[in-house]
């Protein structure tokens, strides 16, 4: 059945467009997914109208016989509008269930309109209801995919931000730097830490570098190797490296692993490491009067 498969649906979408938008909104309110707290009425209406327009365009051009694929170019408009709407909704805190229900709510007005148009033709009605169900379901599934992709992007972005945040090289005193490591030290982070550190040694003409691992919960052989390599590179640049924040747990684990720190100085706390570092660059910490 070329064209005929969606002929009634298309007619409805064209002639009853505003009514469908209004009913769609109404169903969203009834289902409790309109989120009037996040979107104004006019915003919701504009979003719905835009989505429905793109949906109608897809139905017109993207359904041959009774087959369709939302990945086809004919559905490009819908995908673009949906991506925008989803992005907006994710950023305002809409849940995936709300988003899917929001789209699925479109079935109600479409079914109602079909019933009005085809009251005496049950076989056509069933056929069209099935078609609308397939279309709207595909629409909703695609929405969920966009939703998840959007979430994943946010997670990936946050991870990158954390990666950068967590490797600040701090100048504690003249020629004394410290690098407080937090979390895990995988190869990518170790590389970033190393670059950052060596660059700063050059800039600040540092002589002592304190690598503080108080915030690192697990030191396995890979982390140890990264630390020792960083220490070796620091030494090659003519500075001295102190690894501080070695907890009793980590000390025992490192011994059992058989990790030899060689000539790298290690300290249990950053406090002793700092006193040490200041001594090496010619400063002493003195108590001021009798406090």
């Amino acid at each position, binding site marked *: 059945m070329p064209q005929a498969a969606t002929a009634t649906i298309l007619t409805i979408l064209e002639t009853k467009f505003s009514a469908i938008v209004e009913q769609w909104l109404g169903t969203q309110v009834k289902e409790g997914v309109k989120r009037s707290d996040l979107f104004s009425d006019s915003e919701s209406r504009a979003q719905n109208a835009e989505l429905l327009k793109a949906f109608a365009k897809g139905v017109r051009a993207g359904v041959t016989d009774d087959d369709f694929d939302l990945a086809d170019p004919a559905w490009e408009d819908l995908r673009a509008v949906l991506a925008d709407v989803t992005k907006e909704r994710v950023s305002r805190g809409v849940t995936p269930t709300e988003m899917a229900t929001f789209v699925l709510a479109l079935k109600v007005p479409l079914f109602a309109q079909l019933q009005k148009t085809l009251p005496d033709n049950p076989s056509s009605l069933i056929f069209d209801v099935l078609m609308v169900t397939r279309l709207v379901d595909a629409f909703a599934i695609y929405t969920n995919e966009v939703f998840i992709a959007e979430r994943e992007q946010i997670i990936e972005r946050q991870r990158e931000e954390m990666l950068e945040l967590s490797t600040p090289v701090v100048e504690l005193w003249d020629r004394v730097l410290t690098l407080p490591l937090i979390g*895990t030290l*995988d*190869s*990518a982070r170790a590389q970033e830490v190393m670059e950052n550190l060596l660059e700063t040694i050059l800039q600040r003409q540092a002589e002592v570098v304190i690598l503080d691992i108080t915030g690192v*919960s*697990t*030191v*396995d*052989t*890979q982390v*140890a*190797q990264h630390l020792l390599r960083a220490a070796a590179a620091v030494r090659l640049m003519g500075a001295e490296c102190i690894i501080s924040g070695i907890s*009793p*747990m*980590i000390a*025992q*684990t490192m011994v*059992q*692993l*058989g*990790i030899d720190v060689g000539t790298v100085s290690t300290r249990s706390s950053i406090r002793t490491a700092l006193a040490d570092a200041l001594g090496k660059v010619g400063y002493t910490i003195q108590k001021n009067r009798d406090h």
Partner: protein
Amino acid sequence: MPCPSCGVGDPTDPSAYVAVQSISLQTSRDVVMARQAVARALKSRGASAIRTTRFATAVSEIARNAIVHGGGGEITIGFDLASAYLMVECRDKGRGIADIPQAMVDGFTTAGGLGRGLGGAKRLADRFEIITEAGKGTRVRMGVKV
């Protein structure tokens, strides 16, 4: 069933072990997930901080081995109520280990690491068993008494 010689049980056997978690090992992030899951499981059962750190580090070593040498794998964590042992089994489908005694020797490495992971993991765990077959992969089981 525990292996008669070393007392190492099979944590994937649901009749003997309460399943804690299974984690697919593909990236270094999964290694972190695995050792955090083990650390959580140990802490919630009242293990001391030092035993938790030690076993989590051992898990970190073998999980990374599965990724670096085995091309990825899976780790299963199970708890034996009767003996109060937390067991993990780490499986990969890599090329296997040609010579286990040699691989256990400190300093032996095929991937440019420190060469202390496998021997270290054995020293950090209370129970340790390694089964490997050339071309078919490696299975490491480790346990810690809680």
